[in-house]
């Protein structure tokens, strides 16, 4: 039977064929054992990625309980959605995030990891406020410090990309950070408006985010100028491919939301999302036109702009779904800027 039009069946066949022989596997096993013998495991010491708190008997017992309850997923996965004050929160900030940072080798990877952590911190603050959960001044200070530290790290990664001449990648990374900050700022403002009792605590963080937005905007202006005059065609082409992929994937996900709207996305929200999608599609059309005209530098700027708006809109949709008591979409937050019109 022919398998030509059935990649899934061919993958099964490829799986059997693309394999290591027993002798190859043994050779690498021996090499690995020799390497490990030469570099043995350190004596058991507490990991620096764990806070002292996590080693207290009560905390460990509680964590173990949660891990057992969450059996089927890993502890990391269980910790992913935790908030300050939750038992597994130190796993997220003390294990998962440092691990991701440690594994990020290139400046692109570093920028992406730091950006994601910034988004996570801002989302946690919004969740705490929306759930009317008390946050003491120490936790708020820790959260504020974490936001600032990871924004700085993300910006440093962007500058590092720019310094090595990867202007397209730098513009994209900066744009991703902008999307996170823009969405975070809008979400926190919505929460602050809905929950006046926690507004002062939130404002401490939104003020820092606002300053970071200004810095990111300034950097965007500089990077856009550099991209516009870049002569590194390969780098620009690679960045275009990434930005276009992010944009189209994000648009597909947003269209899925419209096709199967969750309960929290009411009709007016859907109208705002549809409007956002239409504006983004028009930017994509312009970008495609620029590619057709051979003006890749302009195309990259347009695709990056589109991907930033997609990311912002996706973050707002996600927040609207998760923050049950707050309507995030439906205000100015979801409008794209003039460049997309």
């Amino acid at each position: 039977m022919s398998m030509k039009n059935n990649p899934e069946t061919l993958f099964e066949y490829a799986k059997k064929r693309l394999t290591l022989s027993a002798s190859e596997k043994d050779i690498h096993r021996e090499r690995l054992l020799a390497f490990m013998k030469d570099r043995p495991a350190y004596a058991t010491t507490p990991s620096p990625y764990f806070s002292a708190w996590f080693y207290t008997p009560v905390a460990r017992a509680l964590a173990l309980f949660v891990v057992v309850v969450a059996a089927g997923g890993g502890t990391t996965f269980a910790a992913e959605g935790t908030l300050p004050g939750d038992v597994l929160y130190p796993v997220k900030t003390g294990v998962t995030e440092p691990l991701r940072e440690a594994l990020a080798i290139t400046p692109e990877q570093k920028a992406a990891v730091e950006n994601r952590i910034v988004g996570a911190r801002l989302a946690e603050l919004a969740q705490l406020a929306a759930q009317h959960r008390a946050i003491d001044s120490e936790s708020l200070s820790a959260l504020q410090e974490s936001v600032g530290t990871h924004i700085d790290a993300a910006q440093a990664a962007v500058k590092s990309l720019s310094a090595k001449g990867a202007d397209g990648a730098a513009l994209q990374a900066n744009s991703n950070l902008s999307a996170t900050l823009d969405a975070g700022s809008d979400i926190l403002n919505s929460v602050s408006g809905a929950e006046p009792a926690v507004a002062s605590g939130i404002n401490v963080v939104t003020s820092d985010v606002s300053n970071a937005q200004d810095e990111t905007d300034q950097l965007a202006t500089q990077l856009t100028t550099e991209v516009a005059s870049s002569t590194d065609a390969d780098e620009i082409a690679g960045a275009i491919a990434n930005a276009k992929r992010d944009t189209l994937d994000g648009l597909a996900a947003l269209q899925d939301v419209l096709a199967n709207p969750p309960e929290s996305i009411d009709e007016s929200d859907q109208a705002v999302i549809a409007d956002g999608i239409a504006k983004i599609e028009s930017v994509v059309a312009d970008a495609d036109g620029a590619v057709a005209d051979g003006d890749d530098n302009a195309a990259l700027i347009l695709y990056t702009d589109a991907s930033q708006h997609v990311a912002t809109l996706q973050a707002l949709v996600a927040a609207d779904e998760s923050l049950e008591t707050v309507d995030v979409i439906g205000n100015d937050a979801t409008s794209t800027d003039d460049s997309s019109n």
Partner: protein
Amino acid sequence: MRAGVDEQAFIAAYDEYAEAIFRYCYFRVYDRERARELMQETFARAWEYARSGKRIENLRAFLYRVAHNVCVNEVLRAKPFSLEEMQELVGYDPVDTRARSPEEDAELALLLARMSELRQSDRELLTMRYLDGQPVTEIAEQLSESPNTISVRIKRALEELRKKMRP
């Protein structure tokens, strides 16, 4: 996985995941020997991290992340492999001594050639999903993406591959 990965646990992980990591690397470089070296480097770097006693919650996910980072620094060929090149590659296989039909080899060569025409990120996703059988949620966790986005990307990548494979 568990805190404090010991030698025994790490070697057991090698036994379990070496082939999957090898395949993952293979679809980055399309070179059997280089894929073996990259697989070896992946485990060496993972051990370097694990031996310090740092926690690794999901060793399979961790190994893929290390493999991804190891492969990302590879100088990749600028153009995709042709069907003829892939037929040559598939035809010469000193490892697989089982009886094989020319039809099966031809179709495998076609798959490999068309896969090489896909974007790197699409190849990576299809390898993780269909060759290694990882669930979408696990891939999403490894790539720090949402499961929705990963589902969309896999669907688009598979559709793209189907299109390329049509006669």
